[in-house]
């Protein structure tokens, strides 16, 4: 079930403050975060995030198209290298 619109989008306050701080300072260094559930809001556009995928942090430059998605959607948690491989021998 989707989130009640009454509450508005979930944005991790820590991530949001960090973005604001970087915005004021005028630099765009990567923000390391574990907050995969955080929604991408327009303020994030142009910033770089390092999103945890359970093992390491995946780098992501946020573009306008990504607004409304969650950070975690861009850091896959599973690696699938394909089935089989007898032929490859």
């Amino acid at each position, binding site marked *: 079930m989707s989130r009640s619109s009454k509450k508005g989008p979930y944005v991790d306050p820590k991530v949001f403050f960090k973005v604001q701080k970087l915005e004021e300072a005028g630099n765009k260094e990567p923000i390391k975060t574990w907050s995969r559930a955080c929604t991408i809001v327009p303020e994030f556009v142009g910033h770089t995030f390092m999103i945890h995928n359970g093992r390491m942090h995946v780098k992501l430059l946020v*573009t306008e*198209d*990504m607004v409304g*998605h969650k950070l*975690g*959607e*861009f850091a*896959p948690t599973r690696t699938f290298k394909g*089935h*089989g491989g007898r032929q490859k021998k």
Partner: protein
Amino acid sequence: MPRLLGVDIPNDRKTVISLTYLYGVGPKVARELCLKAGVSQDLKAHELSDEDLSNLATILERDYTVEGPLRRQVQQSIARLRDIKCYRGMRHRAGLPVRGQRTKTNARTRKGPRKTVAGKKGVKDLR
């Protein structure tokens, strides 16, 4: 048989039903259309006058996205998901279910016909 918006030729069933033969028109929209165009829902499609048809067509063009434009819209939304390489986009690329369904079994609609792997458990029993 009457034609609506170019290619579509709904057959001689009730207007509400035959309108649903258009891509993007379901029972709900069909009913709305009939009301807006002032066409009886129970009339068979071939009994519609030219005037009724043009009425329906103009309302469709004006208030709804159907057929070509709708198909294009859907394609564009999928293309967007693919481009931003989000999870849903990757599932579309891989041709796997997008909305979290199980893939251990089933999911044949997305995956297509079964590709049997020799030597895999269970294959011997099938013989």
